[in-house]
């Protein structure tokens, strides 16, 4: 068959989107004073504006090689320059983008012509550009500790300058280069076997040797994953130091002194070289190899050691000076555990043996999803805050620093104060404008802060155990004064009080004696009544406007709750006649008005409606009270969704937030959405006032206070506070949720924290932090679900910009890796995986202005074995053969069995049907065929078709088909495990099954059911043996005409291929042609799925979209 005889043109593949791990980062300061982030994302260089997070431009640098490193030319004093260009490398591929290309990229346009890819002799770990005798040169260090020097030819291409030079060739895991001037490059290499080699490379060949080994450092007990040479550090004028930082598999960070002055002392470097490197040495780990005398000496150059991170540490970088005079500087480390950690290195520079120091842990910031920070960049410029950027396996880029005018946006300042009771007293006394009502003794440990509330975003009040009230106005910093109170109020509030903000500039207080007070700025406190018992809590009912507000006031042990109302027309808060009847032991902890209905939440998780009865009764009774069966924790807030009178959200101390819809009866409500954000306890929530409102949550996780944007899944602030159960008050600028003020008690101190903007900003949103295993698209192509090894399911929609996707929800319920996903329509998703988990999810749109989807787990398959240690490898869902309200499920378990179930959409329960065990081989794929039979693929390379002996059993009454399963067909198609499968019914049970194997093969099996439905007739099995270089892990039939099918395959060899299979003359044989074969950036690929006409999504380490179109 030749191409001309084919009536159809060739189909070709074209990449249209890629979200991949960020494997390289660099910070570039342009002359315009703007800072740019250069990111290596697969083969692409992407340039982001640090201040605005905007993607400025992008450029595909290499044809089929991910970028591993970027070096932006830096002038010696660090000032912006247009010289030099960018050096970019990945694997053995290298390219230099000249200054003209850099300029056009910064302008937003990619250069049209690129230099040729230069191939280095080995894998590259680091590279630099530098100026030498007026010429721009480059140097690379390879994975074998070799230096390759480069120069640019006149046409911009790279040329090797001299021979490859190395003092010894151990295999490295990390390396760093620094140009020292004077034709000298300093090289540091961290070996796989835990050593660090520091050496000098000389560009001029007139010296006796082109290299000189300075040090060999032993001490690390595992592979060295990161080494960084510091710039020349000057703590006091004239005293200069150079340090090396290293990080290792042994979870330590070490700082080494590599200051040049010691080199002069060392007399014969060459001799040490031969001793240290010349012989065949034992280089094992674990302290069992003896340390050589020279190494011992070198090891005394270890300045400081610290242990950190929960797992491996990939990078370590030097930060800004914290105090030059004290000899301290920040060091940042970046790990597999997705955290960046800040360490303060304090040096004692007085010793004669060189500097000694200590690394003190400062902060830990979680930055990414799943695992691994693959790239990091730190830029320190004198007089400016450092810019620190991280890139993760999740494809996300997070940055701190680099904002031009930070304080302006939210109007909030940046401060973090820790005040004792005495500090506040002193502050009030020292200020001439303020004074205490009466003296308070200092140093009395019984005096403590009690409750906090914000009157406005610049005014906070605190009640105290002596019954006095302090108020602070924030003008740059808090200015404290005392609120003047009558003596009887002080006595009443002493020891016990509660206080809540109920409206703008209004807080309500309650006392043990049952007195309720209202406090407003510039007004004396006023008593608004006394209730029969100790005031337990004051729960604001969200007011429609600040002029009229209401709050539910609860009394200890009472059978009712009271409503305090303020009406602007009367200008007087008062308790009305209406009360809320409470069941015995019902303790309200949250309240809100949803439409006309008051909702209460209880201490043990009940949500209760109090419909307005319409009668003018004094007492409102519960309309409906129910709780999520899993919860016994307090409801902490009820918030109506914006722009909607029926939908509301609850937050709970069980760490979950839920959304409900109030039904038309105004009594009952249904659960729509149930999500666990990364918090242990949620204490409250609000929506931003933007056109597209965002949901902001706050709560606790371990010892941290977490402030979180649930819409963007971004942690906006994380503060060590000592744990939950403490008094706190929080306020944010409604239009800018990143600006925050928080006041809370920590170890009897008042901590006052204020931020103008979130410390960590997401420059680019990412995806899964581990390998995607399954991709499924809803039937109208509306939603795409992806599931990964990180046990998370993400639901995406096509981005409004047309490029890529927007993540709508993250579902965290699976406890181990997810194997398979399938949609039914646009509103039901099923997922299965390890630990015998299979969940059915209900996915709907909310009516409110809060633009997201509501997701809840509708049902859980509950036929687990005792140990729950099998994996559900695959499942399929059919609506063909069981009555109207029932669906049929077939699942494949790792113990070689398949099982069928009926599932009732109304009952939301599974009913067991039948079971069949195979040989012991593990099933990998399972599909219902259109005739109700079950197609299963196994690790032994066989496909089997199982049939129910009686397909027509109980079709209408909605019971499971429990007729036995019988093996109807068994075919060998692969040598070993079948990793991927797709099947189409061309017509009348004529099935074409396409399978991909661990044996690199693609097999197309053509079979049909005989007319009498007795057996399958196999017309042929057609194999392409070496379809890929590695296991074929994903497959999708993208065209299924009767005269031709087309299949897209993806493999661990990172090729995406499109095949066309055309039946031979008279249905005999099959002609298969390879239509296209492209490099794919997705490693460890798990699945491929059609996401709209002519587009497939590939999921693995990242995600990629490919368009398939007729060749033009």
């Amino acid at each position, binding site marked *: 068959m030749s191409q001309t005889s084919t009536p159809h043109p060739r189909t070709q593949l074209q990449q249209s989107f890629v979200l991949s791990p960020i494997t390289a980062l660099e910070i570039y300061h342009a002359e315009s004073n703007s800072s740019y982030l250069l990111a290596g994302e697969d083969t692409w260089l992407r340039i982001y504006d640090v201040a605005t997070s905007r993607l400025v431009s992008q450029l595909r640098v290499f044809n089929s090689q991910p970028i591993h490193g970027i070096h932006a030319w830096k002038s010696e004093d660090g000032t912006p320059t247009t010289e030099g260009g960018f050096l970019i490398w990945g694997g053995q591929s290298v390219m230099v983008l000249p200054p003209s290309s850099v300029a056009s990229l910064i302008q937003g346009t990619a250069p049209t012509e690129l230099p040729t890819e230069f191939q280095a002799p080995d894998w590259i770990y680091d590279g630099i550009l530098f100026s030498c005798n007026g010429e721009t040169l480059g140097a690379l260090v390879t994975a074998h500790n070799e230096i390759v020097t480069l120069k640019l030819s006149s046409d911009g291409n790279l040329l090797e300058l001299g021979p490859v030079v190395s003092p010894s060739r151990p295999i490295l895991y990390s390396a760093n280069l620094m140009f020292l001037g004077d034709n000298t490059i300093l090289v540091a290499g961290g070996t796989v076997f835990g050593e660090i080699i520091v050496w000098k490379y000389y560009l001029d060949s007139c010296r006796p040797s082109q290299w000189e080994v300075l040090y060999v450092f032993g001490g690390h007990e595992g592979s060295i994953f990161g080494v960084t040479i510091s710039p020349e550090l000057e703590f006091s004028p004239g005293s200069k130091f150079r340090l090396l930082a290293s990080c290792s598999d042994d979870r330590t960070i070490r700082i080494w002194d590599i200051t040049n002055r010691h080199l002069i002392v060392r007399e014969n470097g060459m001799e040490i070289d031969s001793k240290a490197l010349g012989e065949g040495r034992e280089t094992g780990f674990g302290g069992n190899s003896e340390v050589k005398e020279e190494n011992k000496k070198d090891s005394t150059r270890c300045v400081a050691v610290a242990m950190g991170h929960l797992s491996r540490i990939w990078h370590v970088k030097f930060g800004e000076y914290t105090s030059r005079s004290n000899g301290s500087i920040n060091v940042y480390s970046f790990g597999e555990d997705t955290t960046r950690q800040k360490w303060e290195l304090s040096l004692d520079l007085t010793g004669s043996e060189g500097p000694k120091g200590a690394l003190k842990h400062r902060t830990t910031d979680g930055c990414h999803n799943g695992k691994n920070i693959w790239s990091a960049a730190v830029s320190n410029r004198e007089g400016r805050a450092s810019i620190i950027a991280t890139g993760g396996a999740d494809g996300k880029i997070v940055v701190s620093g680099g904002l031009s005018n930070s304080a302006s946006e939210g109007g909030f300042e940046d401060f973090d104060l820790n005040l004792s009771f005495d500090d506040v007293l002193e502050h009030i006394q020292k200020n001439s404008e303020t004074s205490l009502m009466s003296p308070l003794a200092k140093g009395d440990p019984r005096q403590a802060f009690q409750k906090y509330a914000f009157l406005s975003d610049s005014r906070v009040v605190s009640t105290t155990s002596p019954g006095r009230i302090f108020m602070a106005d924030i003008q740059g910093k808090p200015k404290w004064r005392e609120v003047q109170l009558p003596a009887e109020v002080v006595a009443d509030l002493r020891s016990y009080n509660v206080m809540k903000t109920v409206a703008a500039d209004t807080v309500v207080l309650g006392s043990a004696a049952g007195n309720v007070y209202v406090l407003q700025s510039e007004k004396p406190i006023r008593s608004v009544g006394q209730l029969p018992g100790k005031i337990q809590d004051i729960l604001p009912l969200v007011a429609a406007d600040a002029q009229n507000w209401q709050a539910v006031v609860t009394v200890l042990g009472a059978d009712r709750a009271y409503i305090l109302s303020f009406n602007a027309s009367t200008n007087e808060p008062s308790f009305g006649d209406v009360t809320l009847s409470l069941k015995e032991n019902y303790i309200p902890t949250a309240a809100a008005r949803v439409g006309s209905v008051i909702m209460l939440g209880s201490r043990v998780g009940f949500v209760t409606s109090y419909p307005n009865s319409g009668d003018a009764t004094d007492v409102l009774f519960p309309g409906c009270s129910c709780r999520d069966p899993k919860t016994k924790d307090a409801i902490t807030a009820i918030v109506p969704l914006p722009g909607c009178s029926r939908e509301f959200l609850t937050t709970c101390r069980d760490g979950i937030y839920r959304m409900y819809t109030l039904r038309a009866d105004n009594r009952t409500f249904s659960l729509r959405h149930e999500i666990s954000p990364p918090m242990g306890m949620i204490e409250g929530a609000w929506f931003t006032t933007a056109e597209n409102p965002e949901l902001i949550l706050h709560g606790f996780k371990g010892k941290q206070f977490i402030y979180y944007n649930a819409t963007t899944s971004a942690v906006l602030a994380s503060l060590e506070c000592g744990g939950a159960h403490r008094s706190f008050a929080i306020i944010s600028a409604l239009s800018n949720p990143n600006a925050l003020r928080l006041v809370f008690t920590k170890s009897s101190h008042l901590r006052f924290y204020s931020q103008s903007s979130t410390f960590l900003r997401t420059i680019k949103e990412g995806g899964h932090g581990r390998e995607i295993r399954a991709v499924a698209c809803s039937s109208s192509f509306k939603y795409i679900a992806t599931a990964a090894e990180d046990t998370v399911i993400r639901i995406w929609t096509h981005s409004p910009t047309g490029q890529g996707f927007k993540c709508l929800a993250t579902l965290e319920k699976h406890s181990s890796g997810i194997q398979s996903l399938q949609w039914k329509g646009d509103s039901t998703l099923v997922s299965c995986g390890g630990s015998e988990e299979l969940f059915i999810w209900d996915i709907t749109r909310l009516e409110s202005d809060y633009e997201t989807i509501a997701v809840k787990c509708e049902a859980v398959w509950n036929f687990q074995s005792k140990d729950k240690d099998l994996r559900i490898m695959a499942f399929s869902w059919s609506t063909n053969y069981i009555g109207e309200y029932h669906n049929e499920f077939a699942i494949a378990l790792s113990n070689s069995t398949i099982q069928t179930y009926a599932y009732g959409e109304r009952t939301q329960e599974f009913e067991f049907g039948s079971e069949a065990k195979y040989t*012991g081989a593990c099933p990998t794929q399972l599909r219902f065929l259109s005739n109700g039979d079950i197609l299963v693929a196994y690790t032994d390379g066989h496909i089997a078709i199982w049939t129910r002996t009686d397909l027509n059993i109980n079709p209408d009454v909605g019971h499971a088909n429990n007729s036995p399963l019988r093996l109807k067909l068994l075919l060998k198609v692969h040598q070993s495990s079948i990793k991927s499968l797709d099947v189409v019914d061309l017509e009348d049970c004529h099935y074409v099954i396409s399978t991909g194997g661990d044996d690199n093969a693609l097999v197309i099996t053509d079979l049909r059911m005989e007319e009498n439905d007795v057996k399958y007739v196999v017309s042929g099995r057609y194999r392409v*043996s070496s379809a890929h*270089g590695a296991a074929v892990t994903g497959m999708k039939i993208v065209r299924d005409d009767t005269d031709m099918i087309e299949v897209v395959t993806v493999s661990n060899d990172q090729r995406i291929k499109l095949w066309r299979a055309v039946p031979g003359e008279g249905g005999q044989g099959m002609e298969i042609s390879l239509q296209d074969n492209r490099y794919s950036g997705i490693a460890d690929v798990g699945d491929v799925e059609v996401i709209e006409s002519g587009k497939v999504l590939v999921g693995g380490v990242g995600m990629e979209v490919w368009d398939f179109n007729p060749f033009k």
Partner: protein
Amino acid sequence: MGKSSKDKRDAYYRLAKEQGWRARSAFKLLQLDEEFNLFENVTRVVDLCAAPGSWSQVLSRVLIKNEKFGRCAWEDREAQFRQRMLNLIPSASSQDDSQQETKQDVEMANTQDETTARPDVKIVSIDLQPISPLPGVITLRADITHPATVPLLLKALDPSYDPETSTNQQAQHPVDLVISDGAPDVTGLHDLDIYVQSQLLFAALNLALCVLKPGGKFVAKIFRGRNVDLLYAQLKVFFEKVHVAKPRSSRASSVEAFIVCINFQPPEGFKASLEEPLGVGSRLAELQEQQQDPISQSEPSKADDDGITEVILEDLSGSDNKNRWIAPFIACGDLSAFDSDASYKLAAGHVSLPPVQPPTAPPYKRAIELRRQNGGAYGKPVVAK
């Protein structure tokens, strides 16, 4: 997870403990041998990256102690029974044959024959990590990538070898088989892991080229990932046959496979040396250029024994396949072998055995100890068992 849950999840882990192997990987070598007859007429073997020593243990038990391991070592009886029931092994006569065979296997499984012990067996195992002694195996602690390791190895093979007088790094009395099961601790950055594994493979190959006799065999672990077809083509420069093999005991979910190279045929004039190793630089590419016969994909046959038709592929993609070649894939260990991906039910009263050898101490051992002393990781207490 209970102690026996790994026994259920991983049949070969359980079998290894029951049959006294240091690691489950012993079965990989046994299954490779079953398919390729690796040990046939072999007396001199070098095992690289050998720790904890399960492959050396196989060598010791097969070549020194002359034990024989039939399929019974890894055969799942129930699977066999069920295969018959499901007509996976169809005809009645072949059933008899296989029963016969099984019976023979039972007898052959783990038998010891003192009388036919092979003469002059020499096994040298090298690793950076210590290997517990094994009968008849010389263990060396050395870095296989270091040039100084070659004289150490040659000396271990032939005590008469004198590195002072010998001018080259070629063995006087070369070996029949070089094997390597070495793999790095993977980082998760697939590109880098594949590169480091390829460098381990080249390190093994470079050493093998120094000590292997013409006609010898080379077996090494390979990661089947991006550009693995370049690697296959490079290995084909030195061997007549190159296969990529996956034993049933190697998980299908793992990228690991084994390259089995048969009949060492060094190119004319080629001199191996660790001073000038292959795997970096352009030396291999030059050798490939010189190669006279361009490698062709295996000839397609019409229909194989299983009734599958090999398709003559028409490649319209126009992709550049220069220096790329996909080695034929062979699955090792027959169908009745335990499935390394399946979960198994344990017999009633199953007692989970302790591992034959504790796993090698990880580099972060000290970090774990320190954390435990300080009351656990980040305030989370670690409960001592």
